[in-house]
């Protein structure tokens, strides 16, 4: 998250600057505008954090405290007040707002389209209706995927690791149980009471998850994430999808010019042993490859993924910089860790998997990436739908129309 770090650095600089000016005798009113410009829409805890960093870096506490008057005049209240008054999850289009709206959809689905039919099951049209309700409920994976791939990475980045892991485990259980009751419903129910109990248990678990998301996860996120991080989450959410239509447009109040400059400065040439790429060429070349690639470096950190048009497994920018063990469901983490261990020790150089997914036949290959002297540089994951390739027969020697 280089941009948010840069912004944090920038804000720290602004604070230092303002403190210096106060020291030189300027009045609160005089520096107020500068502060307002740099910190508008920024969470109070981020300001506190910036101040804390300055203190850690050796600035006397008393100096930093001079800023309190400035906060107070800008925010017309103390830090605690801002915390209480602002419910960010009410801002239309903000990722937490979308999350809550989706939870409403899920809980309505359960109370209106699942439980009533479960009560009278298998009378009348309840079988068909329950089937439809469960189908709809299985879309919950979209909601959970956004959480796991977009929100959890930031929680981890801010040092909150245990709650996402616990939550991900329960998400997996829920997805699994939905599938199980769906299967049972289509294949035939052995024990009616048992089946009803399972669906009941499942819906209970989902309602509990909603409670956890809204009462624990959202407050934790709101306390820790920066405006830029929320913006990234907002921008990347469509990649995974939504349970609601017409997501309101949300634009944080200020996207700093400085941020844009940093991004512009990144254009340049990449010199390789066998040629030279412009950055945009390299990006597009990798995206045009008929396969999806993801690279994890020697420290098990996700460094890069290509963005082909039809990615088989969605990836979001939030995973960049994240430990690979945090990017997989708890149930499969040990498999991933084993592969990496074998690559690192030199025991293996590649490991392949092939799975069926709808109409697609997915070939997932992992390669150890090694330097010239055989030193371990990381893992390259290559994923491809090989169905069209397997379907090839005969020959084609002429140009198609």
């Amino acid at each position, binding site marked *: 998250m280089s941009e948010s770090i840069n912004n944090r650095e920038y804000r720290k600089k602004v604070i230092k600057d303002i403190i210096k000016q106060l020291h030189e005798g300027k009045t609160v009113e005089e520096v107020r505008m500068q502060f307002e410009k740099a910190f508008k829409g920024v969470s109070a805890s981020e300001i506190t954090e910036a101040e804390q960093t300055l203190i850690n870096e050796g600035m006397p506490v008393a100096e930093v405290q001079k800023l309190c008057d400035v906060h107070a005049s800008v925010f017309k209240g103390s830090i605690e007040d801002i915390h209480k008054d602002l419910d960010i999850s009410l801002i239309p289009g903000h990722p937490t707002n979308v999350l809550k709206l989706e939870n409403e959809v899920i809980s309505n689905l359960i109370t209106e389209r699942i439980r009533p039919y479960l009560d009278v099951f298998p009378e009348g049209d309840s079988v068909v209706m329950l089937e439809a309700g469960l189908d709809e409920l299985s879309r919950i994976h979209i909601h959970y995927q956004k959480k796991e791939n977009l929100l959890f990475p930031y929680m981890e980045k801010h040092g909150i*690791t*245990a*709650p996402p892991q*616990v939550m991900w485990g329960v998400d997996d259980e829920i997805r699994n149980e939905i599938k199980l009751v769906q299967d049972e419903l289509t294949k035939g129910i052995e024990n009616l009471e048992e089946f009803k109990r399972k669906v009941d248990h499942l819906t209970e678990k989902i309602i*509990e998850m909603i409670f*956890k998301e809204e*009462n*624990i996860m959202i407050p*934790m996120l709101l306390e820790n994430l920066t405006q830029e991080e929320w913006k990234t989450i907002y921008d990347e959410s469509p990649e995974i999808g939504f349970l609601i239509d017409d997501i309101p447009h949300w634009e944080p109040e200020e996207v700093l010019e400085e941020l844009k400059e940093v991004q512009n400065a990144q254009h340049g040439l990449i010199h390789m042993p066998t040629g030279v790429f412009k950055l945009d060429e390299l990006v597009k070349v990798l995206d045009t490859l008929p396969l999806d690639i993801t690279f994890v470096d020697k420290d098990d950190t996700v460094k890069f993924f290509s963005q082909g048009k039809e990615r088989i497994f969605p990836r979001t920018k939030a995973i960049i910089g994240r430990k690979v063990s945090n990017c997989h469901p708890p149930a499969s983490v040990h498999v991933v860790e084993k592969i990496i261990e074998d690559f690192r020790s030199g025991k293996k150089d590649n490991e392949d998997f092939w799975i069926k997914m709808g109409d697609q036949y997915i070939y997932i290959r992992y390669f150890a990436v090694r330097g010239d002297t055989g030193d371990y540089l990381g893992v390259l994951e290559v994923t491809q739908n090989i169905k069209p390739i397997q379907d090839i027969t005969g020959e084609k020697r002429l140009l198609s129309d």
Partner: protein
Amino acid sequence: MEEKTLDLNKTVYLLCTQDPHIMTILAKLGFSDILKPGMLGTAGRFMTIPKGAVLKKIEMDRIRKEFADNGYEIKE
């Protein structure tokens, strides 16, 4: 014996760090997640006992009684 109070408005994190015995009692009552490493310092900072009771479906009366039996005065 010193005065022990259980403030239901305080977060579980605050309560348990100030008085670890509270954590033992909560775990015994069924708040098992509290013992998972890393949970108290994160999620616990946003949870109060009444909120947790809703989530875990543990009767507040049972909680009140258990703490009273352990010599706590309950502050609502």
